[in-house]
């Protein structure tokens, strides 16, 4: 039994066991990656497989024309239990403007939306925006303070850091006559580790450790705290959601939240 929290979590789920454990919780909204419209997941769901009430769907593929036509077909036939959508493609935003719907519309333009002006501009068209993870803690606070509507904060989970349309693992297998699985592990010369996931629509790379932004849970003007459960066990997910502490000993990776990124090489030399 999960302890009730004041926080509203938007939990991106990829396995069915955790769905059962989380679906009864009042402070949790489940976000389902949709088959054929997502990249970077080990599992996804067809719309008719999503039975939970108040479910949100996740569409993070960048869609070609065929893809956007398929999306238009899908959105016209959405069942009433689907209450919201989180998406990356601007074509989806345009489509949701044109087709009548009551969905809560949340733009997750990955690696964009790093400033309050962009976010407020998009908020003229949609209900909320997932703030980029490529910013510092101070930048995040300013954005939340200046945003015209409550926003979604990426609070915990593996962050997609590269999305290619190429099938990089299939290409590797074909080139070397290998059979590496479509979820694999990479290590570079600096001994930094990554996870790489491919499906027919492209390849996504993640750092091998989850981003920990649990400290954001006390911030205001937040519509949802987004938890991405990809690669996490059910026990870990439950622990993270229930935890009162920020679990930094176990999950120390805070990405860019503590230090601003470098724009020019000469800045490093200062």
């Amino acid at each position, binding site marked *: 039994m999960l302890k009730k929290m004041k926080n509203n979590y938007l939990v991106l789920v990829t396995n069915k066991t955790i769905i059962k454990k989380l679906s009864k919780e009042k402070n949790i909204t489940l976000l389902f990656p949709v088959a054929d419209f997502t990249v970077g997941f080990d599992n996804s769901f067809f719309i008719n497989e999503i039975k939970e009430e108040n479910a949100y769907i996740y569409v993070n593929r960048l869609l070609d024309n065929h893809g956007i036509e398929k999306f238009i077909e899908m959105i016209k036939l959405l069942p009433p239990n689907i209450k919201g959508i989180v998406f990356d493609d601007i074509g989806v935003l345009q489509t949701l403007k044109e087709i009548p719907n009551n969905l809560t519309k949340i733009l997750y333009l990955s690696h964009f939306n790093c400033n309050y002006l*962009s976010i407020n501009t998009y908020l003229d068209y949609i209900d909320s925006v997932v703030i980029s993870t490529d910013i510092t803690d101070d930048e995040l606070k300013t954005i939340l303070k200046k945003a015209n509507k409550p926003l979604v904060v990426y609070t915990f989970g593996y962050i997609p850091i590269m999305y290619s*349309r190429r099938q*990089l693992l299939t290409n*590797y297998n074909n080139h070397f006559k290998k059979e590496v699985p479509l979820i694999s592990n990479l290590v570079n010369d600096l001994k930094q580790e990554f996870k790489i996931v491919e499906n027919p629509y492209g390849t996504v790379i993640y750092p091998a450790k989850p981003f920990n932004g649990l400290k954001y849970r006390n911030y205001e003007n937040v519509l949802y705290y987004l938890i991405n459960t990809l690669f996490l066990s059910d026990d870990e997910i439950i622990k993270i959601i229930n935890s009162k502490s920020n679990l930094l000993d176990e999950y120390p990776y805070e990405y*860019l939240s503590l230090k601003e990124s470098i724009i020019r090489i000469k800045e490093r030399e200062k």
Partner: protein
Amino acid sequence: MIELLAPAGNLERLKFAFIYGADAVYIGGYEYSLRANAINFSKDELKEAVNFAHNLDKKVYVTVNIVFHNNDLTNLKQYLEELASIHVDAVIVSDIAVIEIVKENNIPLEIHISTQASTLNYQAALFYKNLGAKRIVLAREASKEDIKIIKEKTNLDLECFIQGAMCTSFSGKCVLSNVVTNRDSNRGGCAQICRWVFNINNEDKVFSMTPKDLNMAIYLKDMIDIGVNSFKVEGRMRSIYYIATVIHEYHSLFSKIKSNTLKESDILYSNDIINRCANRESIPQFFAKLPTDKEQYYLGREEISNQDFLGLVLENKDGLLLIEQRNYFKKGDIVEFFGPNMETFEYKIEEIYDEFMQIIEVARHPQMRVYLKCNQAITKNAIMRLKVFDKRNYL
């Protein structure tokens, strides 16, 4: 309209791009541009660039295409107003904040949507059109069918890359550089981590994701037919030699398409010239099919710098060419000259004269000035290069 669009990392490269046949160039100022480590243009240089272009009835587009953070917004309005005041022909943007500032303040700037926005479908293009965008630089991942449909459904100006380096990722969707080096890829600091090699699952073969360069020479006619307006060459960090060579070859191919005289041999020859100049293999990528391992580099890639750029023609006085040396050449070398408004031709170096008209055997030193005698029509700013490919062998 067919526009050949060249990159320019500084004023000299911009001038060479125009002289060698570009109809427009794209450049970056000191701020807000994704090639933060290029030389780029000061405000005075931006003004000079625009004046130079407009005097030739050509265009200058300025990249304002970083992903903005809060602090980056501080002087953005002023910068955009300055760009408008010097009459740049458009700004290339990816962040909606720039569009918002232009609209809110009625700044008279034409908006082009950067390839960083990864536009692949007509609905996305319509969104930007409704915001006032005049042109979309499509994602490099766009197929022929995608381009055709976007054109039909939006009638926007479409700009597509035809030559140059590819990101492995959708542009704008990669922060490998941020994670590995803390250099911000979406604010011009990309460290090109996708060109590193990786160990995968402890396999004996290394994992690579590096794409070969893009080259669309064989599809130029198809691109024209489906409505592409602007044909873009990548490479704001590239040298004048690269820009002159690539723009010269593509300008030649477009001229032959216009006169309906293009032959396969022309394309094969141009491709060899371009690939040697780039020191990389270049091929089509997403236009006709999804790229396979054949469109990537794995181990075995060779990138050997060559010294083909031998000299630059500073003046031609009645058949006496003043040459600024760029790489070693000597008496007896077989070279060729190419340049604006002239036919490329082969030349054997019979005599070299120093600045005092004394005969020398070798031009050894970069930037040294020497004279060659030649009675063919050679224009100022023509380039002397090592002759490697003979066009007669392609016929």
